[in-house]
């Protein structure tokens, strides 16, 4: 059971969980983001273990690269020195914690009973090529739609970020 793969999994998973827990427990926003980068990267490792090399690459590119950077910009552009938690919301935290715990327990109950036999698969062979074939044949329409979505998001973000400037400009 203690195959090399398993050890690798345990290590990566540990890093991911620790990153998550740090996200929750650190008080400095910047530190939180850094902790999260660890998680994102280890998730990429998990993808590798799951024979999804291309996804792992994309994960690092998008999450560890793009999104984290955007978020860091977001933090820095806004007031981030305020790290104190809102007073009086501890009851809510506790309730949410209980809820999350229950939720996790139920799902774990489901996962625990799950017994998926491993099938022969060829995912690890020419993974990127397989993805490319699927994307450009079977999923070509969603793929194109995604590009539309990204374009919309791009324009939308610009509009949202700019519009008030103009308004403020008008006001002034």
């Amino acid at each position, binding site marked *: 059971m203690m195959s090399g793969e398993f050890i690798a999994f345990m290590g990566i998973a540990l890093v991911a969980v620790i990153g998550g827990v740090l996200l929750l427990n650190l008080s400095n926003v910047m530190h939180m983001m850094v902790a999260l980068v660890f998680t994102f990267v280890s998730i990429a490792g998990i993808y590798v273990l799951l024979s999804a090399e291309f996804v792992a690459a994309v994960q690092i590119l998008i999450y560890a690269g793009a999104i984290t950077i955007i978020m860091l910009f977001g933090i820095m552009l806004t007031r981030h020195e305020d790290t104190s938690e809102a007073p009086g919301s501890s009851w*809510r935290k506790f*309730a*949410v914690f*209980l*809820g999350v715990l*229950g*939720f996790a*327990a*139920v799902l774990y109950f489901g996962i625990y009973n799950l017994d998926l036999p491993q099938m022969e698969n060829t995912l690890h062979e020419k993974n990127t090529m397989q993805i490319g074939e699927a994307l450009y044949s079977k999923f070509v329409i969603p793929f194109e739609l995604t590009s539309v979505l990204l374009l919309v998001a791009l324009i939308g973000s610009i509009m949202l970020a700019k519009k008030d400037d103009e308004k403020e400009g008008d006001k002034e």
Partner: protein
Amino acid sequence: MENAWIIPLFPLLSFLFLLLFGKRFKESSAYVGMLLTFASLVYSLLVLFERFSSPTYKQEGVWLTIGDVQLTAGFEVNQLNALMLVIVSLVSFLVHTYSKGYMHGEERFPVFYAYLGLFTFAMLGLVLSPNLLQTYFFWELVGVGSFLLIGFYFYKDEAKAAAKKAFIMTRIGDVGLLIGMILLFWQVGSFEYDAIFAAVAAGEVAQGMITLTAILIFIGAVGKSGQFPLHTWLPDAMEGPTPVSALIHAATMVAAGVYLVAALFPLFTASDVALTTIAVIGAITAIFAASIGLVQTDIKRVLAYSTVSQLGYMMLALGSAGYVAGVFHLMTHAFFKALLFLAAGSVIHAVHTQNIEEMGGLWKKLRVTGPLFLIGTLAISGVPLFSGFFSKDEILIAAWEGGHPILFLLAVIAAFFTAFYMFRLFFMVFTGKSRSEMKNVHESPSLMTLPMIVLAVLAVVSGYVNTPWFGTFLGDWLVEGNEALGHGHVEGPAWIMIVATVVSLAGIYLSWLIYGKKSLSRNWLGAQTLYKVLYNKYYIDEFYSMTIVKVTKGFSHFLRYIDTYLVEGIVLGVTAFVQTLGRLGAKLQTGQVQTYSAVAFIGLAILMVIFALTGGYL
């Protein structure tokens, strides 16, 4: 006899006809009523004579089906029923005739006759019933007829109260009857008298159950026949027109209780406890009502208490296994008591008061009514050669043979009382000085006197159908073919007859001394308290209104508080709860998406946990 069912239909026709078209006929509606009751009478007589020569006839059809059980309705002509038919239709016809004169000038004359028709119909139906259910059916209808007639003068508050009281008091008894009847039904599987008797005789019913049902049914009889402790309605019922008192509250309906016990006699004889209960209640009622009758001043009330007392007598007879004695007295009593009431009505008609203190010396003025009243008085007092003598003698013998010396003693004392207060009544009304204010006193029209004469004749001679001297025809006939009813005539010691005679004569003599000759003080009771107690009828009414009525009212008010405060309070509480919940919910609406989603998520988590724990499906 096959067409005996038609007998009750004549009065029913009279009822419906007069109800619908009575207004047009005014006082001639009396002829409609008289004609139709006369038809009933003739037919009843035919049935009676036919019954002498042929066996019991019974015919039934299905009335209602409940599952496998079929409830039947029909009619039965046996000895008792045939006899009762004649008694009822006869008295009813006579009262119809009498009322033509008595109710003259009454605005609601047709209504009165319609009610009389309804009552007669119900009573005739009652005595023809072959099963308990049908008996109950008519039993209640009779009660309604009585109720309507008591409340005939509806604008009088007393009449209203009396009618209500009569209905409710008898209703209490009826519920007993209903329960007893239903319990018996589930034991026997039928309401038929025959089936019940057969089951009882075969020992299919547990002894305890027999006693229970018998006593419950007897409670029905107690209510209807004004036995202690449900007797108070009967004297109050005298608020009704006097002919009604004669018909319903003397001769027929109140005797229905006795009839019921007689009709179910085999059931009662199967339980000694039940019989003893009947005898004891009867004896208590007899002495108790008689003692109240000693001091009453209202002519009709004296007669009413005497009725109660006599009914107690009949119950005593039945309770002592004296079937014949009870039925015999029922018959003679129907005649002489109806006579007395009609005569009293005639007196009231003449002097327009019911208070005997205000009467006196009427003998000379009412040359017909006076002697007739005397005949009735002699008969009820048990003076030899009159009908009451023979029937009372039978009862005393039955009580003696029944082995209850104390009950026998009570019966003798009650007989003494009866003779005393009846002659007190007679002397106070007819002898002595005539009051100056009574000038326009005149005899009643012949329409009223004729029925009385018929009844007087019967009051004298009806006793001779069952005497120790001229044969016990009635008794033998009544029990013919039915051993469960006991012997036709019980030979009792001869001294009982002598005792009865002596007692009644003594009562008359004492009464004469006090009220006739006035040689004894009228304050014969001496102690005022005793007089007061008797005059106020042992405060039974007061006792009831202090206890039962008060408790019922109190309980009702208590429930009303519960309803208005507790039940409504719960409703208000629920409303308040919902409102609070709403306010809480409103507070939750902070406008923060995070809070909303937190709440939503917690809800989801709770649901998931519940589903996981219960396995998804309840």
